[in-house]
């Protein structure tokens, strides 16, 4: 029964479409949630959804690469990176990101709806009309809008931690777009993941400086003898 279930292409495609909706919901969460711990959870869930999408696509298309990609995403984005960020979060003791630049959560949700429409209109210019309902096209639209929404997160949220999650969301969008449209070599996928790891590591170092209060920052710099300027 399971095999027949797995062989039913139409059903699988419907499942992927449902997963797309879930991905969008996670993106909306990332745009509006103030609690950093839940942001992180949502990111992990989003990555897990991507894993599921890649796995379902493997079942539809049968390409080994997709399976490998699913595994890679599972290991790096669902497990390792959230773990890292969690460690940082505990170290710097900042659990909330309350302030917003330019856009309040409601407004950014409205803007992101506009972004999805813009992505659809933009991409429809490159393809013939009959593909507009096809799975890969919808995937590309979702991927592109996810990238743009990640960018929205980067500039509308204040704390570095949130910005990093915005960046990671962008990368998820690129991954989604890559799965459906551009056929990226697997090596590049691996390299992107390694880049992400390094980014998170660097953030660890920088965030400790930036996301602390000003006095603490000065104190830390002075104990490290990096800078001994006058006190303001």
């Amino acid at each position, binding site marked *: 029964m399971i095999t027949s279930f797995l062989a039913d292409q139409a059903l699988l495609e419907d499942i992927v479409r449902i997963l797309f909706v879930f991905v969008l919901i996670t993106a909306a969460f990332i745009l509006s949630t103030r609690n950093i711990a839940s942001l992180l959870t949502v990111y992990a869930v989003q990555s897990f959804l991507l894993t599921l999408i890649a796995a379902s696509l493997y079942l539809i298309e049968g390409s080994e690469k997709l399976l490998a990609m699913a595994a890679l995403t599972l290991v790096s984005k669902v497990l390792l990176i959230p773990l890292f960020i969690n460690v940082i979060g505990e170290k710097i003791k900042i659990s909330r990101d309350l302030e917003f*630049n*330019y856009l309040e959560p409601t407004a950014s949700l409205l803007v992101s709806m506009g*972004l999805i429409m*813009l*992505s659809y*209109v*933009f991409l429809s*210019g490159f393809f013939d009309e009959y593909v507009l309902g096809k799975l890969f096209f919808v995937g590309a639209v979702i991927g592109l809008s996810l990238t*743009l929404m990640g*960018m*929205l997160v*980067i*500039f*509308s949220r*204040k704390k570095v931690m949130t*910005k990093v999650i915005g960046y990671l969301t962008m990368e998820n969008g690129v991954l989604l777009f890559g799965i459906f449209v551009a056929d990226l070599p697997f090596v590049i996928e691996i390299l992107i993941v390694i880049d992400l790891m390094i980014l998170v590591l660097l953030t660890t170092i920088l965030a400790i400086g930036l996301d602390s209060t000003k006095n603490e920052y000065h104190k830390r710099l002075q104990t490290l003898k990096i800078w001994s300027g006058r006190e303001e």
Partner: protein
Amino acid sequence: MSLLEALVYGAIIALIFGTILPLLYRSKNTRKASFSLSFFSSILLLAFAGTVLYTGKEPTFPAFGFLPGLNFTMAADRLSAGFILLIAAVVPGVSIYSIEYVEYAKSEARKDIQTVLTNLFILAMLMVVLAGNMVGFLIFWEIMSLSSLMLVLHDYSSEENKKAGIFYFIMTSLSTAFLFMGFISLFRLTGSAEFGHLDYAASILTLPFLCLFIGFGIKAGLVPFHKWLPYAHPAAPSSVSALMSGVMLKVAIYGFLRFLLSVSAPEIWWGVLILIGGSLSAILGVIYAFRESDIKKLLAYSSIENVGIIFTGIGLYLIFKLEGLEGLAMLSLVGASFHAFNHALFKSLLFLCAGSIVHATGTRSIEALGGLIKRMPRTAALFLIGSVSIAGLPPANGFVSELMLFQAYFYSSALQDPLLKVLLIITLSVFALTSALVAALFVKLFGITFLALPRTKCAKEAIEVPQPMLSGEAIPAALCILSGLFSNRILALFGFDFGIPDMLVIGLLLVGVCGFVWLGVRNTGFSKTPRRSKETWGCGILAQHPTMEYSSIGFSEPLIAIFKKIYRPEISSTRTYSDTKECIFKDGTTKIHFPKFFEKYLYLPVAHTVNVISFQVSRMQNGKLGTYVFYVFIAVLTLMTFTRYFA
């Protein structure tokens, strides 16, 4: 590798060594060796350029690729050989002069830097002329600009020099920007960075032409882009001024000619534009020069005037060529090029002499000089040769090139178009006026500086400069005379025969006339009658006093009155009276101020606009990451919309 190529490589290597040596071993002897190397390289270049001009043989050089799609090639044809000859004629004098002159710099480090940069500057100018494509041209053009900028700023402690440096920097960057635009639009057109024939309609080439005209015009000092010259020249060391005025301006002219001669079908308005620009520069240059009392500023303005004359020749060339008068076109072109060569010689001579004067007296203001002919007789004689040449008196070289242009003008009655005829008559009269004013200008400069009594203590105590500097000045001076006397032989040697009068005959005639006059005066028996030594028209004055002499501004006064519309002098006076009804005059002062027309109405408004715009732009840069990502976001959205609907 043939001999020709070996000569070029030898010269380049010598200059590279000259640039590097003073950095490795810092001593006076190294500096000497460095300048000797540049002297040596110019001898090699002289042989090279002479051979190419004489035989018309074009050497080939291998290309150096340094980036995919970009390679640097060298090439030399008769045009570049002509300008290499010019470099090779100026550099020997400057090198020998600099051996002594560089030692007057304030510190050891500055001496070394000046030596290094001078060699680099010469090398860069040479490579610009040798460049076979746009890539090399622009790279060495920038090196040339930057090394000369450093030299202008060599005495960076003075506020005035800093201002000059910044002014020069902005103008030269502007020039490079325009050149880039011009070259890029040419590149888009041809798809190749090589200099080659441009077989396109003139309407397509309008943009490159205008960009290159402005770009090269700024560097050459064409009015209204000339303002950097009178600032940069006084700030730079005199040997560098000699190179900048003598060679660098000509390199710009070379670049412009290189473009213009490769266009197969120019349009008549190009020629008219160049001719008008040239005439305007010529006349305004000399008129502004009259106002100056600073010897180096005056010479700088005179360079603007000469560049104007050269551009006039180029404009005439285009007009005659398009009207089918090939012979006259060639005459104008060779006249312009020959004038460029001559100007390089006498202007470098004059700048070197000015350097000697400034060194000996410590001032650049000629109002403070006077009577230097007794204290610095050799410098005075050399300066006189330069003045005679630049004033266009026979038998010196300035006469010949100006004569060629005059001849081209005179024969222009063969033109059909009446409007062009009128234009040429107007510009001819401007040119004639310019020539006359230049003669008056140098009468003033020589007279105020060298004749009569010293006006100040510094002029009274001046002593002649050392021999190396004099020898350095003597080389261009000798070349001025020789290239004048043998002008038609030199031109015939290079294959140009325009029926110019044989200057050697005229020179001998002049010498003969002078000899006869001298003999005649001597034989009247002057020496035999007893002499009475008295002040002529003494009128009871006990002794001559410097305050009775013409001052520089006094000499210019009649001209200032004539050209009042151009100078727009602002006269302000204050008076005090002895009585309350203001009848009995007690005391007063009057000030004549010359407004800086172009600065006030062109440069400052432009600078102000740029300032306002950059302030608005700088507000966008607030140092916040979020804002920058926001910009990127907006840019991405705009691009997406644009590509969807418009592309």
